[in-house]
């Protein structure tokens, strides 16, 4: 593969998932050094090259790499199952939900147990429960409206409003 900047044989290859699409940059040693790429494994460097298009000759969209695109990815941050297997670290908190089965496999034997029984951030549990209730009520409201059950819909709307106000008051 040739360098994306000057066409010489490429030595440094960077791959990143941006918006669900795999982007790849290939650079020769000189162009890599010029761009400040000293550690090809660092995510920050991939960001620098791919993130905001500041590097002139970097193609904005690159063909997906089959081995990477096959794997599952976190819907929130784009972190893939392959990334997880490779670095055994996660991309964001939501990865723990996206890769729940893999998480369970990983933490087996790593810890004394599999369920948290320590500290809980103040107010967070209550806030989470309210948010879950809100999602449920909104779904019920949609059903009530489509079923033209306006009396129930009015009641649901009042309850939703109450929770929304409470959340606004407690949200950090």
């Amino acid at each position, binding site marked *: 593969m040739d360098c994306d900047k000057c066409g010489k044989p490429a030595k440094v290859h960077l791959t990143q998932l941006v918006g669900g699409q795999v982007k790849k940059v290939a650079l020769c040693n000189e162009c890599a050094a010029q761009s400040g790429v000293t550690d090809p494994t660092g995510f920050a460097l991939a*960001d620098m090259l791919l993130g905001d298009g500041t590097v002139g000759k970097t193609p904005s969209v690159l063909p997906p790499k089959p081995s990477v695109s096959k794997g599952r990815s976190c819907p929130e941050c784009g972190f893939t199952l392959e990334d997880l297997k490779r670095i055994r*670290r996660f991309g964001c*908190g939501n990865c723990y939900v996206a890769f729940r089965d893999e998480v369970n496999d990983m933490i087996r034997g790593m810890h004394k147990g599999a*369920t*948290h029984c320590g500290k809980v951030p103040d107010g967070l549990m209550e806030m989470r429960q309210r948010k879950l209730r809100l999602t449920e009520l909104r779904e019920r409201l949609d059903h009530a409206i489509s079923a033209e059950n306006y009396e129930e819909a009015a009641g649901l709307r009042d309850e939703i409003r109450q929770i929304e106000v409470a959340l606004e008051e407690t949200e950090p």
Partner: protein
Amino acid sequence: MKHPADWMTGKGADNAVVLTSRIRLARNLANVPFPGWAKKGQRQEVLEELLPCVEALDCMKDGFSKPLESLSSVQKQVMVERHLISREHAARGEGSAVVIERRQSISVMINEEDHLRMQSIRPGLDLTAAYETLSEFDDEVAGAVEYAFDPALGYLTTCPTNLGTGMRASSMLHLPALVISDQIGQVLQAVNKIGLAVRGIFGEGTESLGNLFQISNQSTLGESEATILRRLERVIAQVAKHERNAREKLLEDDPDMVCDKIGRGYGVLKHAWIIDSKEALNHLSLLRLGGDLGFLPGETVALCDELLMEIQPAHLQVHNGSKLSPEERDAIRAEIIRSRLQTLQPPDIRFIKKTGGEDDTSPDLGIA
């Protein structure tokens, strides 16, 4: 940074065996990629959200707060040597910051492996108090931002080894008598079997320099903070008791040999003109033991603790005010030690005291 931290001088704590207790909590913001996966702009946003919030906390008034890129490599290295930031954090630049409380007992790393790594250090064995201080600090931060938290998995961290409580608790122990009497392997194996990690400090891997060892929890999920701390404190107290017993036994069995070792350490440190850090740490360890056993004045222990910190490479460069080659460092290290030990009289076997080691009637670690 010009002054030693409170915990370094060991004031107000019986720290002849347990030098320090340290708690670290890992926390992340909800719905933002972790630092290693975040884009540069996202990391910057996290920094802009967290930095003012940490700086505004009461205990951080008059504290030290700097973005990492504004610090020189020597300044960062000094913080690493004082255990205020990690080596990994020191390697980071733009988008990361460090905030340190005035007395250097609480430090916060922003955008290390996790968005927040908060740490509290105290002298002696005092893990629970160190945790309580840090937990209050954590509550204040949690009042201003939303943490990534899952009811079943606890605090969500970049690495699953920190999942749950996000807490790593550790103590630094000085165990020269267990090393001299060849019992250290047995003790460390027993501690490992209980599921705690042991590593040497000031050295790579598990190599121990200066007979200093760090014991910490490995598991962070499935137990409460209080349970983890209780077990750790119990085991550390047991190891300390074994060390005290070993010190007493050495004095009973062969006081000449102990005095000889301490005397040799004293001789080298007092008269060396060139000394590398490994040799210095090992001899300072013996001097520290001499202070505790009464061969040398009691204040020798605190003096050794200050020297343990002062003779490290970055501290030496700050002391000297310029960059030093390894050879220059070895000469300045020897000079500092000589000048600090100038008035210290040689160890004398006539003054040894009984250490008052307790009988170990319930050896939880299974060591006779």
